[in-house]
């Protein structure tokens, strides 16, 4: 078996490092990346641990294929018990960190305990050193990377680090590498901050042996050619993920003012398009390790305190987060986006909470007395956003409420009104993307049931929007699925299929954007069995690989059940999705919302497909079938 990346367990309290190989049995059950992460988290996290305390773990989990010639094999997951939700915390990032970690001989780093003083880990060619980081504490995410590369005397070192948001235990604290790559959601940066782990630096010159190098190269080229001939690949190479924004906006499927409207209320929507960005700011495109799609823009800020600085982005996420509560031009969106990256703040979640608070302000539920004198009106977004970012990063003033995340903010602000929980929208404590879910049952089910919380990436069935012929959908999903995105028919099957499939992608470490996530013509299970054969020397049938996804997902569900008591009651989208129909939009979407009875029936079907009981808990038979009841091997 090729790919012999090790697991390193680093006890920051004792300063001890233990290295272990991964048994082949675990490779067959969990692959690597997100799969091994779920396994390691389940067995190494002390049950009931305080997410901010030393019994929590922070892991860097590179994919099984990360660093190899599989297309876009760049991804790494950062994992732990989320301080934001109390359930599984996982954020996935691209860039070059994961590949370098693999070249250094490791696939997984498990940090336990906590250091008394700020430290960073230096991982190089099979060795791990813990080094002093007191000179780095308080530095932003870009400065930190620069200083570490300088002091190690090697510009090829890759660094993943936290900014002051993670240091100050803001639950939106993320882990960052490069100019913009981030393990963004669920507050893994905050876990690192609680351990006083400022950064992980990696440098490797060891190779990754392949099972069949010649076949791996040939298959990779075939896969790349197939990928690059799709329409969506071209869209991404030019417009990045922002290619989604235009059609979503035109349909009426974007939300502003915290979901009160789906028609752009802050001026001319033309100013929000990626075309406008191209005209005014774009200076180039770059990509992650091994990726031919290169979907990342580069921009230079022109005005303001960060004028002249180079940033990367935007993403669709930038427009639907930074562009959702009053910022109405690229200058402001990019400035605040770059500021968030410097502080190390997850923009998706943070912007969701900010717009929730702005609606509370609009409705007079909170006022200047509560916000510390800050005017949270939508009109004031340009002025208030940088201030709120700074306060959140420093965990001060009104930022101290934001820094608690959705659950904490609701708890804090509910004394002013029992409506607070309605307007601050979340699933399981995680905020959502600023797009409309309430028209699409598949999207609503996806964000409601995701093991992370209101996360679209866990199962986002973008294919639901393409009106594919129903015989194509039936073949793909193994059962009848309606080609209308407003229908409930077969959507439980669709969501569950995507959950399992994406769990495999995340375990492999290849980028989702080069998979069936975006198009039925992009690589899926049928192709990945070949990647695994030629690169890793592992044999799977398509069904066995699909079952690996089921196993990973079910184990995450078990972690959530154990740590946060998650059951059926936590698998619903925000109440607004049920209560309020969309005020505007084209014919297919206007007036639509989720229907409770139909949603419940869909949820029943979804649980049954996963082999869970009607309360959303995996049954003993399912656990046995998936071999999740075995004794730990690592």
């Amino acid at each position: 078996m090729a790919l012999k990346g090790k697991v390193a367990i680093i006890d920051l309290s004792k300063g001890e490092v233990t290295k272990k190989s991964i048994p082949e049995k675990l490779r067959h059950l969990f692959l690597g990346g997100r799969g091994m992460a779920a396994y390691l988290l389940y067995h190494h996290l002390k049950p009931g641990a305080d997410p901010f305390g030393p019994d929590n773990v922070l892991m860097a989990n590179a994919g099984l294929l990360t660093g190899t010639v599989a297309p876009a094999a760049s991804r790494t997951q950062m994992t732990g018990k989320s301080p934001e939700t109390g359930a599984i915390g996982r954020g996935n990032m691209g860039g070059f960190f994961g590949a370098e970690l693999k070249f250094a001989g490791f696939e997984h780093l498990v940090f336990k305990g906590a250091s008394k003083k700020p430290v960073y880990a230096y991982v190089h060619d099979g060795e791990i050193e813990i080094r002093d980081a007191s000179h780095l504490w308080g530095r932003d995410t870009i400065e930190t990377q620069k200083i570490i590369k300088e002091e190690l005397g090697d510009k090829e070192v890759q660094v993943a680090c936290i900014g002051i948001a993670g240091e100050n235990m803001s639950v939106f604290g993320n882990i960052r590498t490069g100019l913009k790559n981030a393990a963004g959601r669920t507050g893994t940066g905050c876990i690192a901050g609680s351990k006083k782990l400022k950064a992980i630096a990696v440098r490797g010159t060891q190779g990754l042996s392949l099972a069949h190098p010649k076949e791996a190269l040939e298959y990779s080229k075939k896969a790349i050619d197939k990928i690059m001939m799709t329409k969506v690949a071209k869209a991404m190479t030019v417009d990045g993920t922002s290619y989604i924004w235009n059609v979503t906006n035109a349909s009426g499927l974007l939300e502003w003012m915290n979901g009160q409207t789906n028609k752009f209320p802050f001026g001319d929507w033309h100013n929000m398009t990626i075309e406008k960005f191209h005209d005014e700011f774009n200076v180039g495109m770059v990509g992650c390790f091994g990726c031919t799609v290169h979907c990342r823009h580069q921009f230079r800020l022109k005005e303001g305190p960060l004028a002249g600085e180079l940033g990367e982005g935007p993403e669709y996420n930038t427009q639907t987060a930074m562009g959702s509560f009053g910022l109405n031009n690229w200058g402001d969106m990019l400035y605040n986006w770059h500021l968030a990256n410097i502080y190390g703040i997850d923009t998706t979640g943070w912007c969701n909470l900010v717009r929730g608070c702005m609606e509370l302000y609009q409705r007079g539920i909170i006022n200047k007395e509560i916000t510390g004198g800050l005017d949270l009106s939508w009109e004031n977004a340009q002025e208030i956003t940088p201030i709120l970012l700074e306060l959140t990063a420093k965990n001060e003033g009104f930022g101290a409420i934001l820094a608690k995340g959705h659950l904490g903010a609701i708890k804090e602000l509910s004394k002013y009104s029992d409506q607070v929980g309605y307007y601050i929208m979340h699933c399981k404590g995680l905020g959502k993307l600023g797009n409309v879910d309430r028209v699409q049952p598949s999207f609503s089910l996806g964000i409601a049931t995701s093991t992370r919380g209101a996360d679209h990436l866990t199962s986002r069935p973008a294919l639901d929007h393409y009106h594919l012929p129903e015989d194509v959908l039936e073949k793909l999903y193994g059962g009848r699925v309606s080609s209308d995105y407003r229908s409930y028919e077969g959507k439980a099957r669709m969501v569950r299929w995507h959950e399992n499939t994406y769990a495999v992608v995340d375990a492999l470490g290849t980028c989702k954007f080069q998979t069936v996530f975006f198009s039925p013509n992009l690589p899926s299970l049928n192709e990945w069995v070949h990647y695994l054969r030629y690169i890793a020397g592992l044999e799977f049938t398509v069904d066995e690989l699909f079952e690996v996804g089921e196993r990973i997902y079910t184990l995450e569900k078990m972690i959530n059940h154990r740590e946060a008591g998650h059951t059926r009651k936590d698998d619903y989208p925000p109440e607004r999705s049920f209560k309020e129909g969309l005020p505007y939009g084209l014919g297919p979407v206007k007036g639509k919302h989720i229907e409770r009875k139909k949603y419940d029936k869909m949820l029943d079907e979804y649980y049954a497909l996963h082999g869970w009981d009607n309360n959303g808990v995996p049954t003993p038979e399912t656990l046995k079938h998936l071999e999740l009841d075995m004794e730990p091997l690592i």
Partner: protein
Amino acid sequence: MVTLSTRKQPRDRLLRCLNCFTRMDIPLKAEFYTCPKCGTKYEIAWRAGQAKILGLADNSSIEEDSKWH
């Protein structure tokens, strides 16, 4: 604009109407296009020879009543 895409996909000019989901065949370099089935009018943009919907052409998104209230 920086364009690095070097491949020509076969269906670069086909789009779907967002209202009635009919396939639309967009003439090269068109700036506007009206769906032949339902009459929804679109602004069209182009990325390296590939058609894309920029948005709706009827300005309904910047009406008076769409300001925040």
